[in-house]
């Protein structure tokens, strides 16, 4: 089964990320087709991006972080992704590696420079905040298309673009940090990006809302350049701003190694 590189943060960083899902009956067939089309849309094999994360507290106070991310598929089509934290000083040179596996959970390691040590992270930590942002580790994990069932809820314009509204329910709620995800998927087949997504903490309560504030074509792909994940309960938000991006350019395989985690070097 084909997997995709993450859903949400990946959507910003990689443009291949769309919540993906499985077929049920009735309008779910249309919903499944929409999500399948989004997943099958041509996607870059590699990404390299420099991203600014703006952490906005409930009073509007701002703190910034700069991260850099490389991702590429291996020969089997499985995704690898590494993220480097450049600022602020408290997290500088922290590095995070995710390796997708066939048939089991992703492997995740984090290098914390204060400890000079690479540490494996369990999938169970997926619901926790990713380095203090509104994104979780699960938000950056791969998702299987058939782990969800779908329903087409209607259509609505977001930012002037027509969207299909698709509801995704996890087949095994224990494996998902969200009770459901409702996605506003751009109808334009060239774009096919989720322009808005609401993550529900239970059947009726929206926990977080993801909004694509700016999208554009980069190296021939439609990409989000600026997006915000807002925690509806706390009022806090994390805004991701693409500062620089390259797609389908060579990514050194040595980025996805313990050596790079420990040293930040590939040579």
């Amino acid at each position, binding site marked *: 089964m084909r997997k995709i590189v993450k859903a949400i943060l990946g959507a910003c960083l990689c443009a291949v990320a769309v919540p993906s899902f499985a077929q049920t009956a009735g309008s779910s067939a249309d919903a499944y087709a929409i999500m399948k089309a989004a997943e099958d849309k041509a996607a870059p094999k590699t990404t*390299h991006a*420099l991203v600014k994360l703006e*952490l906005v*507290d409930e009073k509007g*106070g701002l*703190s910034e*972080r*700069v991260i*850099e991310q*490389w991702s590429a598929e291996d020969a089997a089509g499985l995704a690898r992704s590494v993220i*480097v934290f*450049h*600022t*602020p*000083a*408290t*997290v*500088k040179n922290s590095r995070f590696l995710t390796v997708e596996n066939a048939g*089991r*959970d992703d*492997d995740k390691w984090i290098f914390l420079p*204060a*400890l*000079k*040590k690479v*540490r*494996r*992270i*369990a*999938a*169970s*930590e*997926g*619901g*926790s*905040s990713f*380095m*203090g*942002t*509104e994104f*979780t*580790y699960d938000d950056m994990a791969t998702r299987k298309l058939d782990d969800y069932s779908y329903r087409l809820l209607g259509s609505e314009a977001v930012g002037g673009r027509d969207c299909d509204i698709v509801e995704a329910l996890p087949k095994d709620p224990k494996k998902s*940090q969200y009770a459901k995800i409702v996605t506003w998927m751009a109808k334009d087949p060239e774009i096919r990006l989720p322009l808005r997504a609401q993550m529900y903490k239970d059947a009726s309560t929206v926990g977080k809302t993801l909004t694509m504030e700016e999208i554009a074509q980069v190296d021939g792909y439609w990409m989000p350049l600026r997006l915000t994940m807002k925690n509806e309960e*706390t009022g*806090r938000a994390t805004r991701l701003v693409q*500062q*620089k991006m*390259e797609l389908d*350019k*060579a990514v*050194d*395989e*040595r980025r*996805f*190694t*313990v*050596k790079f985690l420990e*040293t930040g070097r*590939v*040579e």
Partner: protein
Amino acid sequence: MAIRSGAASGRRPASPAAAVLAILFAAGFFAAGGAAAAQEDGGSFFEEAPAAEAGGLFGGLSLSGSLTTVFRAFPDADDPAGTPVSAFPLADVELAWRGDAVDLVFRGTARQDAVPGSPSARVEEAYGRVYLGPADLQLGWIKQEWGKGDGLHAVDVLNATDFGDFRDYDEVSWRLPEPMAKLDLHLGPMAKLELAYLPTFTPDSFPRTGRWAHSEAVALQASVEAALKAWGQAYYAQVYTSTMTQMSTALQSQGMLAGQAAIVAAAQAETAASLAVAQAAPAKAALALREPDTRTLEFGQGALRFTTTTGPVDWGLVGYAGFLRRPAARAFDLYVPAVTAASDPRVELSYERTWMLGAEAAGVLAGFNLRGEAAGYLTKDLSGDDPAAKNPLAVWVAGFDRDFLEGKLNLNAFAKGEHVLVDDKISSPADVDKAEHYSTVVVVAKLGAKLLNETLSVSALGSYRVEDRGWKAKPEVAWTWKDVAVLTASYSVFGGPDDSTFGQYAANDNLALSLKVSF
């Protein structure tokens, strides 16, 4: 720590490590040299940015670190140290230069203690690192943690530990830097072989005086003083008896009138001198407790570690040829009945050679991050019946951490066991292994919560040593402001029997406040 009477052997520890490692270095290097070169990419966007924007100074030079102000209050009214509050600034600075294939790193700390005129500064790390394709070589004063455990380890052999300021188990900063040459051979994406040669040896550091004086070190010092006092008294009694006998003989042979005053004066002088020696004996304890000079090549050590990933498990093997970091104590001339002024009563500490083989593993099962280590420390006394030599030792660490409530709560729990092997052969009270317990287990658990996007963390740390029932508890709250400053408040409580690992610090319960600013 038992004191054993014996004669000085004059033996120096051999150092086969260098030769063995020279072979391994070469073998590993050539094996790794065959790895295929990867396709290079365009490098980091961030490093292309102007130096100031990228956090650097100029030309690959960067400066980072932190400044921390610490206040500690010791509310115990019976505090023997009589220092209810200590306050000190602590600076931690790292200056690094990053070249095309070379890193140069200097990290040092400076601390001004509450006691006037006692500034302390030390080099935490100072090393160069050369990148040679699949290998990289580090040379200098390095701190390097080995093992999968969190804070507690069985295979962490490269650095000594400074117990000068009692800290928690999860601190890395209390390790002492060690001069070493370390070669890392990257054998695959997640596989690595590390080879280290340490030309000299640093033992663990236990304070013998002050607030955090370690009970074992204090006991050793006290036992030396007591032994010297006993030696002085025996010496005085022996001299007094001898002098009186000589005086009596002289008086009888020379008559009561001839030279009486001179004979009595000589006897008085001799007995007074011996009394002075006897009275001064305990004061000699500091001089009589002697440690070997481990800053010599005879104390060279070698270590290797292979780590890799197989499926969902990270694992590794570790080997070490070096020395036990805790000393054995042997006494000389302390208990000899026929003492003279020329006797040299003393206690010599020695660090015994050991050969360690260990394994480590980490994996995920049912949401638990499981981690473990096990090691056997072999010594020359494999049969355990040599009272002058340390018995072999088995050490293990096992534990886990797990998130709950969608990562808002984390429980981290580890246990470490140490077992003196063939302890049934320890019969002599003077055996260097003589102890109340030959198996010890310490359990450390931390329950923590991260709130408000990790800007507020609340935790409770507990430590318990099973054998002596000593314990420590430390609730802590930390607030991070703008990713720059961290304000921390904690309260440490020590309990258990007075002679227990933690109970000995019962007078040191303390409230600590710190403000740390990173740059």
